[in-house]
């Protein structure tokens, strides 16, 4: 084996004279050495943040404050502050909940599924994508808790022995499944992310001058010293976690879709929901990763690490999942009429031509038509265009959940109870607040943790270089 390596890589000097493969592009530009990778990533933690970071942070905190005010008002006054009525009992909050959970899925997709498929380009983006997952799940979790009306009693959904008998939770309810799915998802994503961070925290520990920072890094790097015995077990556990997280991520959005699919409402009662929701989640999640990565590479000057090649790969995933979602839209229309059920047929007509048709057509434009532009290489490699399209995809995916939830509810079986739904300022405040929370935490993450996985990037540094 040693001989093979020597023949393949030539002598020691090969490091200085890399030969670029014609078939593959290097993943990291600039022909970096190992120590350059360390310096490039760690200096983001040492240097003071630039103007761009401060502007973004201030705007996010303003949104967060708006959200805090809306939350306080809702909790102290009640759910009556929202635009719900007796026909439409679920609207903005559940839309936001499903939207944020979906965003989170791309992080796990990149860190676990692409790991199992041996996609080496994931190493530049997996750290921030996983952080995005954690933050998005936090944003998502807020909405059901606020909607409970008495959020301080949220723990009643846990099956613990209690003074009420013990009266246990109803394990037949998809809402209880949701609780288990999302808390497991958050926990496993958190430990997965932290495990990946440990070697990088050790790198930061070994080069930081500030005493306080070094003490913090020392504690959280768990005494990591790069031992091969440790690496060996670490990689085994990393693989196990990836194998566990893969079905987990599929289960989470399937269970979220059961919240709707197990009911009898036309537009919800559908067997295609689990795969349709999972594809939609990965679709919106990848769009959000692209939005964030385009901002990150500019704000933190990481253009050589997050290259056009990475963005192009993500565009391809978006194109694929967007197309799956489009097929799901067509399937819904077909099955609606094929069922011969007048309620199902009415629902489809009401979606496409009813009072909320504008929401439906926004969704179709952003999710089914816009991503088809990614067939063109020019589009996939022009960063400003990707940025705009990725935002449009997320607008579309937010509307998809709005369409599924509100349009299905507002004209139900009994025409005398038909109603319209108009969101209130409080609800917009909560939506804005969740974006504020998301970006505030993400910007803090960029300052406090190595934003790119150094140990993993070093492992793929020579890809297509020699």
């Amino acid at each position, binding site marked *: *084996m*040693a001989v093979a*390596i020597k023949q393949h*890589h030539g002598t*020691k000097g090969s*490091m200085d004279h890399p030969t670029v493969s014609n078939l593959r592009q290097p993943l990291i530009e600039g022909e970096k*050495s*190992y*120590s350059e990778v*360390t310096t490039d990533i760690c200096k983001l933690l040492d240097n003071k943040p630039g103007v761009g970071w401060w502007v973004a942070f201030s705007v996010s905190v303003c949104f967060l404050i708006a959200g805090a005010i809306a939350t306080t008002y809702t909790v102290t006054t009640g759910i009556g502050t929202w635009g719900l009525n007796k026909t439409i009992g679920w609207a903005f909050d559940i839309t936001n909940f499903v939207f944020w959970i979906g965003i989170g899925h791309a992080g796990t997709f990149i860190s676990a599924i692409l790991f199992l498929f041996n996609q080496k380009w994931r190493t530049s983006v997996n750290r921030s994508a996983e952080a995005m997952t954690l933050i998005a799940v936090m944003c998502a979790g807020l909405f059901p808790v606020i909607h409970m009306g008495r959020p301080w009693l949220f723990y009643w959904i846990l*099956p613990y022995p209690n003074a009420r*008998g*013990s*009266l*246990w939770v109803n*394990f*037949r309810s998809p809402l*209880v*499944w949701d609780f*288990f*799915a999302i808390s*497991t998802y958050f*926990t*496993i994503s958190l*430990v997965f992310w932290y*495990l990946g961070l*440990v*070697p990088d925290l*050790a*790198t930061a*520990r*070994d080069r930081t001058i500030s005493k306080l920072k070094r003490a913090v890094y020392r504690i959280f790097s*768990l*005494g*990591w*010293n*790069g*031992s*091969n*015995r*440790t*690496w*060996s*077990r*670490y*990689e*085994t*556990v990393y693989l*196990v*976690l990836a194998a*566990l*997280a893969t*079905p*987990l991520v599929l*289960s989470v959005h399937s*269970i979220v879709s059961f919240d709707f699919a197990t009911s009898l409402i036309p537009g919800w009662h559908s067997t295609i929901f689990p795969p349709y929701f999972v594809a939609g989640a990965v679709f919106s999640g990848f769009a959000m990763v692209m939005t964030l990565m385009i901002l990150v590479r500019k704000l933190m000057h990481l253009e050589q690490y997050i290259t056009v090649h990475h963005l192009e790969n993500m565009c391809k995933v978006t194109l694929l999942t967007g197309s799956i979602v489009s097929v799901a839209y067509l399937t819904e229309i077909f099955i609606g009429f094929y069922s011969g059920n007048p309620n199902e047929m009415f629902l489809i007509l009401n979606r496409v031509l009813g009072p909320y048709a504008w929401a439906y057509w926004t969704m179709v434009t952003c999710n089914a038509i816009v991503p088809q532009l990614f067939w063109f290489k020019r589009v996939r490699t022009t960063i400003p265009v990707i940025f705009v399209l990725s935002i449009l995809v997320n607008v579309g995916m937010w509307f998809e959940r709005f369409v599924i939830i509100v349009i299905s509810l507002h004209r139900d079986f009994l025409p005398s109870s038909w109603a319209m739904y108009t969101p209130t300022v409080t609800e917009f405040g909560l939506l804005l607040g969740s974006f504020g929370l998301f970006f505030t935490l993400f910007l803090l993450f960029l300052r406090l943790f190595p934003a790119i996985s*150094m*140990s993993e990037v*070093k*492992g793929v540094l020579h890809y297509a270089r020699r």
Partner: protein
Amino acid sequence: MRADKDDKAQANSRYTAAVFRNEEELFSAVLEARASGFEIHDVYTPFPVHGMDQAAGLKRSRLTWIALIAGAIGLMFGLGLQVWTSAYDWPLNVGGKPFNSFPLFIPVTFELTVLFSGLIAIGVLLVRNRLWLFSKRLVFSRVTDDRFVIVLKQSDASFDQRRAMKLFARHGAIKVIEGDQFV
């Protein structure tokens, strides 16, 4: 400095370490050191080097089995919890569904299987590698940055320091360190 039993027994043994600039040099040094009968204590690298486990003679980790057993425990706990609470402890009629509604218990059972398996696998990893919050271990300089280190045990009197030095030099070691205690 926490030392386990093995470390205490060997506390007086000496070691010889060599520092390399890249993984290929380290890799060939590891292969030759093992072939010429040296006892490799451990290898230290900034990132996992492909094939190093076999080269250094490590056995396959058994952590996958631990994850499997932990998952089985989670599965039984999840299913047991739901069947016991819903069908035995306080059976409630929910929409006429059977008390033991097994198919509806699958999602939570699955989630608890994954949760147990993942958390216990990580827990065992941390314990087995003595990684914990206040762990203080010797770290070779720049090994978390861009240096690759091999550590040989001077296991007995037959250890030939000069032969080891020569071997390291042949593979391009930039420094050889001798020390008193294992890291």
